C-alpha cells in the first residue's frame, strides 16, 4: 500500500499522497491541494517553526509543526481535526492579543496575512489584554517604516535580511515575552547598515515593516497648477502592476498605466527604459574604455541603489570598480530637468518635478543622495512604488481593467528592447553585450539570450568574444550571492571583467515595491519583459534614435558626463 510502484506514500486526511523529495510534510500537504496556513514558512528561507499555524495531528494524537517535520513513508496525518482547529485559533488569538489591531488605518489592510487568517478561522473575540509596552515606531528610513506594535515575531524579515541579503540590520533581541525584532541597540534603522532593499517589508506578513508611503506630497504637486509633473516608468513596473487588478500575471500593462497617469494629472509620461538605453551606452563605453586602456576591472554595475549602498558600507575598496554611471532613473531625470531648463519661457515658468515609478524601495533613498542632485535639489522629486501607484489608481477611482492603453510621450518615447529588459536579472548584461558586439549583435539577439544571461540562478556566468580576447561576465542577484562572488574575486578564486549586481533575487521584477513575489510570478514577469523586447523594433541601445538625438543635442560636449555620471 505504501510502496505503490516503488514510490513512497503518506496518508493525508485518509488519502494517499506521494512523497517526491519534499523536505517537510507541509510541502506534501500543499501539493495535495490543502492550503495549510503559515506565517513564518518560506521555502527560500531557513525553517523556523515558530508560528505553529501549520500544525498537524499524527496517528497517535501527537501534534507536530508540518514545516519542520520531514515526511516518512507510511506516515498518517490529519490536517483538520477539532484539536487542531482549537489549537490554531488559540495561537491566532494570542498573537492578536499583543497586536495593534487598528486595521482600517494600517498600510497592510486587506493585504495582511494575520488579518486573512483571523478571518479564515472565524476569530471573533480576543479574550486577553495586551501586555507589552507599546514601543515607538521607527520613521527614520526613507524606504521603510517600522511599527513594532504590529510585529508577531515570526522572524521572516530577520531571515530575509541576513540569509538572502547578507545585511542583518535587524534581528531578535531579548527573550520570552520581551522578545522583539529590532536593530542593534534599538538604533533608528537609518543609522544601521540597512541598504533600503525593502525585502523585509515585502515578506512581512503584517504591517510591522511597510514600504514608506510618499503619496501625500505627490498628490500635492499633481494638484498644484504651478508644477509640471513628469512621470517616468521603470521597466519592471509594467509587468507587475496588473497583479493588483486581477490581470493575468506578467501581462504588460504599460499602455493602461500611461493613460491612468495622465488621468490623474501627470503632465508628461516617459519610459525609464529610454534612460536605461543611455545607461547601457555610458556603461558599455566605460567598460570598453577600461578594457582598452587598462582601467580597473571587473567593472561592477551601479544602477541598483541597494547594491550601491551595500558596497558603500561593506566594500569601500570596490569604489573604483563600480561604474560611474547614474541609474537609468537618474539619467532620464537629469535629461528631463536639463530640457526643462533650456525651454523655460516667461517670467514665472512652471516648476518641473520628475516622478519615478519604480519597483524599488531603495530608489526612495537614492533620489535623496548628494550625488543625485540637479542644481541644488533632487533631480527626481518623488519615487513611488508599483503598489503605491496601484493605490493611487484606486484612490482616483479609475477602473484600471477598463482603461484603454495610450503611448508614452515624445521626445523620450522610444526605448530599445535592451533598455526594457533592465528590469530582470541579466538584463543589463544582455544589453551591454549587445552594445559591445556592435552592429553584429543585431543578427545574434537570440544567440546572446542563450549564453546564460537569462534565468533565475543566483549566479550566472557568461563568456563572450571581444576582439582577440574572451570576456568573462558574472551576473548575481541577491546580496548574499553578491557577497560570495566578491569573496571569490578577492581571494583570486574567480576572475571577471564585468559584474552585474541586483540586490533583489531575480532583479527589479522582484523588487520590494512590487506586488509580493517570493517563489512565484518571477517567470511570468520575466517573460513579460522579454516579450516587450521581442516586440520592440529597436533592439540595441545604441540604435535608439532618441539617444542619437540626445548625444548630438542636449548631451553634446561634456554635458553627457556631467549629467549622466555621479563621479
Amino acid at each position: 500500500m505504501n510502496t505503490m510502484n516503488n514510490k513512497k506514500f503518506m496518508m493525508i486526511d485518509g488519502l494517499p499522497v506521494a512523497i517526491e523529495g519534499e523536505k517537510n510534510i507541509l510541502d506534501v500537504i500543499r501539493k495535495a491541494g490543502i492550503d495549510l496556513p503559515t506565517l513564518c514558512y518560506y521555502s527560500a528561507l531557513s525553517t523556523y517553526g515558530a508560528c505553529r499555524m501549520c500544525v498537524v495531528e499524527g496517528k497517535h494524537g501527537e501534534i507536530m509543526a508540518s514545516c519542520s517535520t520531514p515526511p516518512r513513508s507510511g506516515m498518517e496525518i490529519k490536517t483538520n481535526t477539532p484539536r487542531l482547529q482549537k489549537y490554531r485559533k488559540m495561537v491566532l488569538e494570542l498573537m492578536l492579543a499583543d497586536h495593534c489591531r487598528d486595521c482600517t488605518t494600517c498600510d497592510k489592510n486587506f493585504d495582511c496575512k494575520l488579518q486573512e487568517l483571523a478571518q479564515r478561522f472565524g476569530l471573533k473575540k480576543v479574550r486577553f489584554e495586551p501586555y507589552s509596552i507599546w514601543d515607538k515606531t521607527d520613521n527614520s528610513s526613507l524606504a521603510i517604516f517600522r511599527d513594532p506594535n504590529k510585529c508577531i515575531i515570526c522572524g521572516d524579515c530577520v531571515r530575509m535580511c541576513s540569509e538572502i541579503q547578507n545585511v542583518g540590520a535587524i534581528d531578535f533581541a531579548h527573550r520570552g515575552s520581551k522578545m522583539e525584532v529590532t536593530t542593534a541597540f534599538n538604533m533608528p534603522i537609518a543609522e544601521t547598515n540597512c541598504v533600503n532593499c525593502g525585502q523585509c517589508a515585502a515578506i512581512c506578513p503584517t504591517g510591522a515593516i511597510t514600504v514608506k508611503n510618499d503619496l501625500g506630497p505627490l498628490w500635492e504637486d499633481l494638484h498644484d497648477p504651478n508644477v509640471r509633473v513628469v512621470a517616468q516608468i521603470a521597466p519592471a513596473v509594467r509587468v507587475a502592476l496588473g497583479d493588483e487588478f486581477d490581470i493575468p500575471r506578467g501581462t504588460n500593462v504599460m499602455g493602461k498605466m500611461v493613460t491612468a497617469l495622465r488621468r490623474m494629472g501627470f503632465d508628461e509620461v516617459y519610459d525609464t527604459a529610454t534612460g536605461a538605453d543611455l545607461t547601457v551606452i555610458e556603461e558599455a563605453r566605460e567598460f570598453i574604455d577600461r578594457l582598452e586602456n587598462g582601467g580597473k576591472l571587473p567593472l561592477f554595475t551601479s544602477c541598483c541603489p541597494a547594491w550601491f549602498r551595500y558596497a558603500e558600507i561593506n566594500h569601500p575598496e570596490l569604489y573604483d570598480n563600480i561604474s560611474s554611471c547614474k541609474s537609468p532613473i537618474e539619467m532620464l531625470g537629469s535629461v528631463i530637468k536639463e530640457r526643462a531648463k533650456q525651454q523655460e519661457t516667461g517670467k514665472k515658468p512652471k516648476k518641473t518635478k520628475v516622478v519615478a515609478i519604480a519597483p524599488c524601495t531603495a530608489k526612495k533613498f537614492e533620489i535623496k543622495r548628494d550625488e543625485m542632485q540637479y542644481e541644488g535639489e533632487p533631480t527626481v522629486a518623488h519615487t513611488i512604488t508599483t503598489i503605491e501607484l496601484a493605490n493611487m489608481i484606486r484612490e482616483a477611482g479609475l477602473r484600471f481593467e477598463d482603461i484603454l492603453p495610450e503611448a508614452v510621450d515624445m521626445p523620450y518615447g522610444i526605448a530599445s528592447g535592451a533598455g526594457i529588459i533592465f528590469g530582470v536579472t541579466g538584463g543589463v548584461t544582455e544589453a551591454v553585450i549587445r552594445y559591445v558586439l556592435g552592429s553584429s549583435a543585431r543578427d545574434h539577439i537570440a544567440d546572446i539570450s542563450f549564453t546564460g544571461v537569462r534565468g533565475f540562478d543566483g549566479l550566472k556566468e557568461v563568456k563572450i568574444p571581444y576582439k582577440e580576447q574572451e570576456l568573462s561576465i558574472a551576473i548575481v542577484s541577491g546580496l548574499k550571492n553578491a557577497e560570495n562572488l566578491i569573496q571569490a574575486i578577492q581571494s583570486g578564486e574567480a576572475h571577471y571583467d564585468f559584474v552585474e549586481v541586483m540586490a533583489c533575487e531575480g532583479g527589479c521584477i522582484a523588487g520590494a515595491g512590487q506586488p509580493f513575489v517570493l517563489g512565484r510570478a518571477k517567470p511570468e514577469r520575466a517573460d513579460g519583459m522579454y516579450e516587450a523586447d521581442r516586440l520592440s523594433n529597436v533592439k540595441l541601445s545604441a540604435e535608439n534614435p532618441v539617444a542619437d538625438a540626445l548625444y548630438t543635442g542636449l548631451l553634446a560636449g561634456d554635458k553627457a558626463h556631467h549629467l549622466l555620471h555621479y563621479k
Partner: protein
Amino acid sequence: MDNKELYQQIDEIINAQSSEKPIVAILQDIQEVYRYLPREAFDYLSEKLGVSLAKIYSIATFYENFSLSPKGKYVIKICDGTACHVRKSIPILDALRKELGLSGEKNTTDDLMYTVETVSCLGACGLAPVLTVNDKVYPAMTPEKAIELLGELK
C-alpha cells in the same frame, strides 16, 4: 574607555578561542574582564567576526547573564530559587537594596562598587538562603549578616 586597549584585549580573547570563534564564549570572556559588555566591543567584534551588529546584540540580550551596562566591583547575586525563597531570601534582597540605595530598576551603585541582582537558582539549595559575591558563596544568610558582609567587603 581607551578603545585601543579594549581592541587589544578582544583580539587576545578571540585568538585564544578555537577557529570556530564561538560568540557566546567570546562575550563571556569580554564580560569577565570588563564586568559588562562595552558598546565599543560590539562594533569591533562585528567587524572582526563578520557577524552583524544586530546578531551580536541579539545574543547579548538573550542571555540574562550578559550586561550591557557597567556593573559594580562587587556583584552580589541573591538566590531566589524556590528553596531560598521559602527560607526568606527576599528580605535579604530588600535589606541590601535599602542599605545601598538600589531598586529593581537601578541595581548598581553610582560609585560602581556594588551590583545587587537576583538569580533563579544557584544550585546550593541545602545552604539556603544563599548569595554569592563575585562567585564566592555565602550560605545561610540573614538580612543582618548580609549588611555585615557589605562592611567586610569595603
